[in-house]
């Protein structure tokens, strides 16, 4: 997906959210750190434009709720959590970039209900890549990307990265650090190198990759 496709997809998801939820005033968009947060911001902005309602945006960092904290070999960075409205009785739209095993979303659910009792929680993701390990599903999906377990999907957003792109990559064996599991829990730590298929890229070379579309 390139920048234009990402933009259109976000617009479509924003419309779907409003279509599903009659009471737009009761919505709160909560982005999962890191890349769920700018996506939540964009959704709020979009809804504001065509609905005229300002949906509040929050952020949660799920690091402390991960189920693999005792197993991973190094301490992850804990990001910011900021939920500034009372969530009790509201409808939360959880937003993340990629839905994979579902463990991140499980952690997010546990963390959210420590803040209050929402009337509903719905999930919006930009990419669903399959391989669920928990009974979790998204309510709003940008794009379904079937993948194999050795592939990675990375979403690059201009707020955080220097470009705007969804990249399909391949796990590089020597970069795996975590001692347990395929990739040490819910977060793939491997670097992605672009497969030939990802010639959908507009340009070459982020810091992790050298050369365009070359398999190494």
């Amino acid at each position, binding site marked *: 997906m390139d920048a234009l496709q990402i933009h259109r997809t976000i617009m479509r998801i924003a419309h779907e959210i409003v279509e599903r939820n009659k009471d737009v005033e009761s919505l709160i968009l909560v982005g999962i750190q890191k890349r769920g947060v700018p996506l939540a911001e964009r959704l709020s902005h979009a809804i504001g434009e065509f609905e005229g309602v300002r949906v509040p945006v929050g952020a949660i960092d799920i690091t402390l709720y991960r189920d693999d*904290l005792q197993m991973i070999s190094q301490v992850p960075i804990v990001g910011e*959590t900021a939920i500034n409205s009372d969530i009790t009785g509201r409808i939360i739209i959880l937003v993340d970039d990629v839905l994979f095993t579902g463990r991140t979303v499980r952690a997010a659910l546990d963390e959210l209900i420590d803040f209050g009792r929402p009337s509903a929680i719905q999930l919006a993701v930009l990419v669903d890549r399959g391989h669920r390990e928990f009974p979790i599903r998204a309510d709003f999906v940008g794009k379904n990307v079937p993948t194999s377990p050795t592939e990675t999907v990375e979403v690059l957003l201009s707020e955080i990265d220097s470009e705007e792109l969804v990249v399909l990559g391949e796990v590089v064996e020597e970069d795996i650090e975590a001692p347990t599991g395929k990739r040490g829990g819910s977060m793939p730590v491997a670097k992605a190198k672009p497969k030939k298929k990802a010639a959908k890229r507009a340009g070459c070379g982020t810091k992790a990759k050298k050369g365009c579309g070359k398999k190494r």
Partner: protein
Amino acid sequence: MLATRGPRGRGARVSGRGKFTVPFNRKHLLGLEELTADEITTILDTADTFKEISERPIKKVPALRGKTIANLFYEPSTRTRISFELAEKRLSADTVSFSKAGSSVAKGESLRDTVENIRAMKVDMVVMRHGSSGAHRFLANFLDASVINAGDGQHEHPTQGLLDMMTMRQHLGSLAGKHVTIIGDVMHSRVARSNIWGLTKMGAAVTVCGPSTMMPAEIGRLGEGGVTVEYDIRAAIAAADAINILRIQLERQKARLFPSMREYFEVFGVTPEVLEAAPKHCIVMHPGPMNRGVEISQEVADGGRAVILEQVTNGVAVRMAVLFLVAGGSFDAGTPE
């Protein structure tokens, strides 16, 4: 617009994609002397994010669920002990507290035996305050558990140093290039030593001030790059961005280290009048408990420039950060530092 309430100065450490670890791999926290500036920054940044947890409706995260932490306090402490206990509980750890009075120590049990017993109960971390400098290093060398120093003799009180730096950072921005003056009984103060190590590593300029009877001869050489020694309080604070006032222990007066409490207050007490010699933005800190009317006047203690209660709030956050980082770093432990 994202409504944020959050840490400052974290930008530089946002990692690249695929790398999400922080530079902190220590099994113990025995002092600030052995830490690097990066490690200190990591702790302070983590503490900033943990501060938010104490403001949630449910002040608990499951990060240390299932871990058992023993608090061994061989010296009396209310504030530090409660702060550690709260930090542990807010991370969902199980805590056991032990204080010297009414325990087996009163019956003559040695430190090592007490700890061996606790070790046999499979404790993951030990937080200890002890009257002998170096007791923690002794412990770290034969325990499997992680050891966190809550104060050892006159050596270090690292979590106090860290919470002091966190408070300063919040008010002053960064610590590099800032001037901090520590006033009081420097000779007997582990708080002063931890402050000196931490602040000099972070690039701050430290001045110590107090009666010459309570100022060690070689103190000017402590820390990274040394500290300035000053005996005139107004000169000591003339350029200070922060003042840290140490508690005067009443026993020292009995040891004839200064003539009387009154005289100490006259010469070294921080009063509103003395503060006029300091820059307007200068903040006033104190590790507590305060002796009002001895090292600090009533007006200053309750005044607008004192950030003493913030230090207490930050203390819980810093201790949560330390416990979290040390628990996570224990997997990569080699020999104790």
